């Protein structure tokens, strides 16, 4: 049963009047509730319950179930069998995946994969892939640079280059590390600069010669990252798709989307850690009373609440900004595009830098306030702390995002 199908949400594509906005928000609230239930009940281990150990250690979600719930094609247009909604809905799912600390190739497929495909000029290959997304059949990975450097010079936002080979064949060279969901992907989408220096996206089979995709084991077992290296990989000309507009704007938006999706995940982690801690300290007794009645513990929880509240506000601002610029990026109808993009990046950098750090703080505080229990493997708190730490680094550290923000003051 699809709990969030195209038909359910098509109402939100109405013009953004006040009433429609309320409706969209109500639908997002529903999506959130459904996602929370689904992930809590079956797809993921929950924090703080020792029985979590009985499940698979990496908390792999049931991918078919996610597809069935309608979460994989949220932003795919309705005519391509998607739900035709915005990043605001994708953000809800990201946050809930973080909250449940679930392992799923959602970031690679539904966030970045869908994002890069939507940013490509329509063509048969691209449309076919987009059209299949909602079904859960393709598992995608997008070989974007994931480190701090991508926030610097424009050229650093893409790390692959196309070149004309000797026999007229086009070849790809480059490398990206810590690419989300790289190892499990059946299709690679590689942003690259073509021979003219324009950004394009290249579709590749991970198994093809000249391409090496390697899983990178990381402490956060709830996520899959890997490296993608191309050395003279021969590219099918039909699999090189131009990006809308000049390509650079689409690329910037893709990076913003990546960072914000990770911030949403971190926000979910922080929320989960706050809630599980509040629940624990309300019942754990020491010195004859619940430890949550002691000010040191209570005020620690209050600090979590403040951080989560601020994080929510910043993430909401950024999601609103990103969703509103959304599909306009390639349109000729966007004369203010540069300004809009700058506004999106500002909002995203604020959210990513704040929530990236706050989630680690909150998860660390959760470990402290859980006492010895929190330090056990079984409690699962460490899963969240590791996930928060990886989110802090992925697609730009807090310091890197702040460095970008600071350029506004020059």
């Amino acid at each position, binding site marked *: 049963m699809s709990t969030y199908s195209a038909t359910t949400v098509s109402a939100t594509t109405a013009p953004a009047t*006040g009433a429609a906005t309320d409706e969209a928000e109500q639908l997002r609230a529903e999506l959130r509730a459904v996602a929370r239930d689904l992930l809590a009940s079956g797809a993921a281990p929950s924090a703080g319950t020792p029985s979590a150990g009985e499940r698979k250690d990496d908390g792999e979600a049931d991918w078919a179930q996610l597809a069935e719930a309608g979460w994989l094609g949220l932003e795919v247009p309705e005519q391509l069998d998607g739900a035709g909604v915005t990043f605001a809905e994708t953000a809800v799912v990201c946050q809930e995946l973080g909250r449940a600390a679930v392992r799923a190739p959602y970031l690679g497929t539904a966030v970045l994969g869908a994002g890069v495909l939507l940013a490509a000029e329509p063509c048969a290959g691209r449309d076919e892939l987009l059209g299949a997304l909602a079904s859960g059949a393709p598992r995608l990975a997008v070989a974007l640079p994931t480190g701090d450097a991508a926030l610097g010079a424009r050229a650093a936002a893409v790390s692959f280059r196309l070149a004309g080979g000797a026999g007229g064949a086009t070849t790809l060279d480059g490398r990206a590390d810590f690419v989300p969901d790289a190892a499990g992907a059946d299709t690679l989408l590689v942003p690259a600069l073509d021979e003219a220096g324009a950004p394009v996206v290249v579709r590749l089979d991970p198994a093809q010669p000249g391409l090496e995709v390697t899983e990178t084991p990381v402490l956060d077992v709830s996520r899959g990252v890997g490296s993608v290296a191309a050395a003279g990989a021969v590219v099918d000309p039909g699999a090189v798709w131009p990006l809308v507009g000049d390509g650079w704007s689409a690329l910037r938006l893709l990076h913003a989307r990546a960072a914000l999706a990770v911030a949403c995940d971190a926000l979910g982690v922080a929320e989960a850690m706050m809630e599980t801690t*509040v629940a624990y*300290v*309300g019942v754990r007794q020491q010195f004859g*009373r*619940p430890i*949550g*009645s*002691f*000010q040191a*513990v*209570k*005020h620690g*929880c*209050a*600090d979590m*609440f*403040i951080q989560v*509240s*601020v*994080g*929510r*506000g*910043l993430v*909401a*601002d950024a999601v609103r900004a990103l969703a509103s610029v959304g599909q306009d990026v390639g349109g000729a109808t966007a004369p203010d595009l540069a300004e809009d993009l700058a506004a999106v990046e500002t*909002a995203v*950098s*604020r*959210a990513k*830098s*704040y929530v990236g750090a706050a989630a680690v703080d909150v998860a660390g505080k959760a470990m402290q306030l859980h006492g010895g229990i929190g330090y056990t493997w079984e409690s699962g708190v460490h899963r969240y702390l590791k996930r928060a730490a990886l989110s802090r680094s992925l697609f730009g550290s807090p*310091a890197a*995002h*702040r*460095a*970008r*923000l*600071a350029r*506004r*003051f*020059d």
Partner: protein
Amino acid sequence: MATGRTREMTSVAPAARDLAELRAELRAWCRANVPTGWRRAQTGIGDEEFVAFQKDWFQRLRRAGYAVPHWPAEWGGGMSAAEQMVLYQELAAADAPRLVLAFVSIHHAASTLLTAGTDEQRRRHLPAILDGELWVQGFSEPEAGSDLASLRTTARRESRPGGDVFVVNGQKLWASGAVHADWCLLLARTDPAAPKRRGISYFLLDMCTPGLDVRPIRNAIGDAHFCEIFLNDVEIPAENLVGPENAGWQVAQATLAAERGMTMLELAERLGNVGLRALVDTCRTPGPDGRRPIDDTLVRDRLAGFDAEIAGLRALCRDLVERHDTGAVGPADASVVKVYYSELLQRLTGFGAEIAGLAAHTELAKPASSGWESGAWLLDFLGSWEWTIPGGTNEIQRTIIGERGLGLPREP
């Protein structure tokens, strides 16, 4: 010069186009009305000059319809929450002076009268406030600060030929602006036998009543806007009671709630406008060695951090205002905003003082009529404790957040 337009006052949220119009109107108004160079002119001035400036500014805002936007339309207000947000955003963006002197009058006094006052009390005071009547809050006492409910000032009902009066004895503290006040919002104990919160009543006290003695207290930055009020057999006519006798605690809760919401949004907007601009200016000012702090990545990092945190504050405040509007305010939402704002203010002004370095110590006065981010960073920093302490210290606020916001168990 633009004047206040007559606007349809409804509770329906205005359309985006109307808000844009309002914004344009406000920008024009601010350009024409915000006194240029008021910050410099207000620095180091005497009390009289400050009061005159404040009164003038209040009347200017009143004439335009911007002084009491949160009051009901029938009393001279009537802006929707969305319109008020635009108003405060634009006043902050234009770096308009703050309504310091009339703050208690237009917020606490008005809120008390509107929620718990009689028609007679409203008619007597609301128009007077618009004409400049000033109010002071007489709640805290030396032994009743954060623990307000332990207040000891007594009010004894006695019969008089002209009607019952309450005879008040005691002492109030931290009464901000009492020297200028015409009226006082007074809490006093009318039933000493009742449990702490059950024996308190709420009064309107004419500051000209015999038996009153007001003494200013100098605060940490050298101002004397806080006062002590000594009450010695002060008689208040029974008709100046607000709400039922012994129900003053509940009335006070409503009054205190008036400090929140839109006033926090105003402060957040000021911090995000003049505050951040002043900080950036400080960071761009070359030091004695010719280097600009802003060219240091350490400073850039902090500055960007404040930028993000201020954006977070604004989001929180917008959210709080929207919840006020829809009646969905959580029991700890105001505490979250207060703790976060006050500590952000403290860190930001502290950083300003650090970056300004030795030069910060030579700023001996800050402009009156400004907020807590004047750019005289060391004074601003000292002033920031005016936010972490009163109205329930941040320690108390965190307990409220834990218990009411998160449902954690109370101390046994």
